[in-house]
């Protein structure tokens, strides 16, 4: 329980006042000489228990009345979680707000999203209480710390509005940690508002251990989790998985793969024959709308290869797919952009003809025959001839460059393209991307290096769509060149040396592969599959930057590659410049288009069990407050009425107990005419 006027509690010792008055009255009774003491003593003996109980109750009621009056004045607040933090007020309050798309799930009756409801409750609570000298907001979309003037201001900030981003709760806690360490705050309340989405919390991350340890070293930090873990009763989300612009003769068309996912907890549990229902999907392309009805089953629905005819002159543009309104309005519309597919151009820089040919073969076999592939193999001394602008992938199998070439490669990567460095036979000490080649390694008695580990969840060696792993365990390496790098290994040999490493960059990607594809070095070319997948994935990744139109997940840096992005759609929602890229929409910069949407994880991520979330805060001062999105009650409400009623009741009881007891005279008091004996 908290108090709005805690200073009034200083008066609590006044509850001893009735006891003091009682003790004083013990010495202030009127004194009267009395003869019939024997009856008084008998009466006192008879009424000893009841009289004492009555006196005790009267005293108790008076004490309670005074205590209730003091509590009324101190304006108590309800909320069991407040009890745990005692009476002290925080020096600062940090609010970690999850602005992910899933937080926009609404209670249809209240018309409030989880995000807004959480903000409103928190603002109301902080307004009633004391939030310290600093009120700091860390929103998941920007990850920035922002000092807020007052709790009420939280509701009007652009940084608390909805966004199509995902959240990184561990990252936000790390930001909070950095703030607390930098400011050396005393008592701090950290409020986390979240829907416990699996993706946002990333409970398996190793970062949690470090967060726990670091928070454990800070004293006076209390964590409150405002958890909106309830799922909507019925919610559908729509997503365009693939969009292609094709031309057939004189006609042009868009081919779309649309997926509708269901997050409902209500009707999907019904029997199959009753769960199917039809609902409309609305397409909008070039301001032309069309509606298609699809049948929905338990999992949702999918519309593969849906064709929308377009004007052949429309080389690029944008469109959207919409669903009827439901619990989460943010996942009911998905924007897409389209353009003619770019030529997938790769450049192989190598003086080794055999290896160069191996690269060329793997890169020119198209995944889709409709894509155009172009591979140029050039020697190191012809690097100046590279058309950097139209190249998506650079294979560098030579000594690491330096000087202007190194700068050009860095710039190439910075524009979102991909470079893979392969070892060369030349020995040089050059360093690039904080990496440099070392000596060639040959196997000892075992004749061959096997792959002991590789990362299959993401990046170039990720499992295929069916979930099957790439056959890296079948790869045989006969020679490799070790290298020193600060990057993240994606695959390791038996001797723990790295086969493939990704170097951290802000944009694009830089890889170092320690062996070559020809049979003298490895079975890359002979086995084929792994080599082909690695190069095609790298090419695909690099050529995305070449495309005029691109689909991107919303985040703060999504529009950082160009400076002139302008919002095209939706027209009715023009975010601040600082918030661009956080909201779903279509942006254009000259001939370039990009559609920004929520991450696919936001459509499918389930909530983390609360027990698992609680375990993340082990050893920290932590309290979880479960709230439903439709719950409009305040987190803390004033209780003074209850105490006022308690005071009145106590006074009434005291008055009743203090009433003189009614004397019951069942028989005449005494017969004063009694005359005993008789004359003889």
């Amino acid at each position: 329980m908290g108090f709005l006027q805690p200073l009034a509690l200083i008066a609590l010792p006044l509850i001893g006042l009735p006891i003091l008055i009682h003790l004083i009255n013990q010495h202030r009774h009127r004194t009267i000489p009395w003869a019939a003491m024997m009856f008084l003593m008998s009466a006192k003996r008879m009424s000893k228990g009841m009289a004492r109980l009555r006196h005790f109750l009267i005293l108790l009621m008076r004490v309670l009345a005074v205590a209730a009056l003091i509590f009324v004045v101190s304006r108590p607040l309800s909320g069991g979680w407040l009890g745990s933090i005692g009476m002290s007020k925080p020096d600062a309050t940090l609010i970690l707000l999850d602005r992910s798309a899933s937080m926009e799930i609404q209670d249809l009756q209240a018309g409030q999203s989880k995000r807004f409801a959480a903000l409103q409750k928190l603002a109301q609570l902080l307004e009633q209480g004391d939030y310290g000298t600093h009120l700091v907001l860390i929103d998941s979309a920007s990850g920035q710390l922002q000092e807020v003037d007052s709790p009420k201001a939280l509701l009007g900030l652009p940084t608390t509005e909805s966004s199509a981003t995902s959240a990184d709760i561990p990252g936000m806690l790390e930001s909070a940690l950095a703030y607390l360490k930098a400011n050396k705050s005393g008592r701090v309340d950290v409020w986390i508002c979240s829907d416990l989405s699996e993706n946002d919390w990333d409970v398996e991350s190793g970062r949690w251990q470090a967060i726990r340890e670091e928070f454990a070293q800070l004293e006076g930090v209390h964590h409150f989790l405002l958890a909106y873990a309830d799922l909507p009763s019925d919610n559908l989300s729509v997503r365009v998985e693939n969009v292609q612009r094709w031309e057939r003769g004189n006609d042009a068309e868009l081919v779309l793969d649309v997926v509708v996912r269901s997050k409902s907890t209500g009707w999907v549990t019904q029997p199959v024959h009753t769960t199917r229902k039809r609902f409309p999907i609305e397409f909008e392309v070039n301001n032309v709308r069309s509606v298609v009805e699809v049948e929905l089953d338990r999992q949702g629905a999918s519309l593969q290869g849906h064709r929308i005819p377009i004007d052949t002159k429309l080389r690029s543009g944008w469109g959207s797919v919409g669903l009827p309104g439901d619990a989460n309005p943010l996942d009911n519309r998905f924007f897409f952009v389209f353009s003619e597919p770019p030529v997938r151009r790769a450049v192989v820089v190598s003086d080794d003809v055999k290896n160069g040919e191996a690269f060329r073969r793997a890169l020119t076999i198209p995944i889709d025959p409709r894509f155009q592939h172009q591979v140029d193999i050039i020697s190191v001394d012809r690097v100046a001839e590279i058309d950097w602008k139209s190249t998506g992938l650079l294979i560098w199998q030579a000594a690491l460059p330096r000087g202007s070439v190194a700068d050009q490669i860095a710039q190439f990567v910075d524009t979102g393209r991909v470079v893979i460095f392969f070892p060369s036979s030349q020995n040089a000490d050059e360093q690039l991307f904080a990496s440099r080649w070392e000596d060639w390694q040959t196997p000892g008695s075992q004749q061959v290096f096997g792959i002991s580990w590789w990362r299959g969840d993401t990046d170039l060696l990720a499992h295929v769509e069916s979930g099957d792993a790439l056959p890296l365990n079948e790869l045989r390496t006969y020679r490799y060149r070790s290298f020193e790098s600060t990057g993240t290994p994606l695959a390791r040999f038996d001797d723990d040396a790295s086969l493939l490493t990704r170097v951290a960059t802000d944009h694009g990607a830089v890889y170092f592969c320690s062996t070559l594809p020809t049979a003298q070095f490895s079975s890359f070319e002979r086995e084929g599959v792994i080599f082909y997948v690695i190069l095609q994935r790298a090419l695909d990744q690099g050529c995305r930057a070449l495309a005029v139109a691109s689909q991107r997940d919303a985040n703060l840096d999504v529009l950082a590659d160009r400076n002139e992005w302008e919002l095209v759609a939706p027209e009715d929602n023009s975010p601040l410049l600082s918030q661009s890229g956080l909201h779903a929409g279509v942006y254009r910069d000259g001939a370039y288009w990009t559609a920004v949407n929520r991450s696919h994880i936001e459509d499918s991520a389930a909530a983390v069990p609360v027990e698992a979330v609680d375990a993340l805060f082990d050893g920290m001062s932590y309290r979880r407050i479960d709230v439903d999105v439709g719950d409009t009650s305040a987190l803390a409400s004033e209780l003074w009425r209850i105490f006022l009623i308690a005071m009145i009741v106590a006074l009434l009881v005291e008055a009743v107990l203090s009433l003189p007891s009614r004397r019951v005279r069942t028989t005449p008091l005494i017969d004063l005419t009694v005359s005993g004996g008789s004359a003889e």
Partner: protein
Amino acid sequence: MLQLKRDYLDQKVLERLSTLQLHARLPMIGSVSGKHRSPIRGSSLEFAEYRKYVPGDDPRRLDWRTYARNDRYYIKEFEADTNLRMCLIVDTSGSMNFTYNGMSKLDYARRIAGTLAYIAAQQGDAVGLYCAGTGFHKEIPPKRSAKHLSAVLDELGTMEASGETGLANVLHETAERVPQRALIVILSDLFIEPEVVRNCLEHLRFRKHDIAVFHLLEQSELELEFDRPMRFVDMEGGEPILADPTVIGTQYQRALEIYLESMNTVVQDTEVDYHRIRINENYDDVLARFLLGRTPKRHF
């Protein structure tokens, strides 16, 4: 006429009660002729009984008329009238100072005792006074002289109440020390256990004394009508008691009822002439009722 200078004696009351006589309910053995019956046959005019002549009887007392009718010897006996000894036993414990409208129980007892002493002296009976209190103890054995009456009345006028009651001891002592049958008049509030009173009265009855009890009570003692907690100071010197009459009033009444019921039983068992009196009553009415109640019923 005895010159009365005692302010507790009221001339009008004495004049009103002068027409009434104090009678003993039991035969008395007096030293002189008087107005009370004696267990010894005497020479009064009142016939008592016939009894058979036995050798040794005075032949002059033979009833010759009966002999003439029955041819048997009978002696005709007559009642003997004698005087009585009246012992006034006044409780002088502190509780007798309890006051109502300026008149304490002791004042009330003083008036009754004084008036009774005067009436008894007037009809030739002996009067004695015993003050029963630990703080004030006095004994004046019963005598018949006017001077003795004056001493009794003076003592009544000057006696004071204080300390604990010594009534039980005085009653036992009186039972032992008064040799002949006497009228024992007890004036007290009797704030002692009824069983103690029973022992005293049975002792007196065993000694064939005629016992009269004036049980003096005050109205506020009976009702305990106070509306706030009070500190009750024991008038006999005991520990004061802090009590709230509004809380213990019912229990007080209950204790009082039990006591009075017990006292009723005691006086009925011991056949004493018991009068329970509120001291706001006129004492002359009380005395008139007392005297009339003791007047023998004549059978014609």
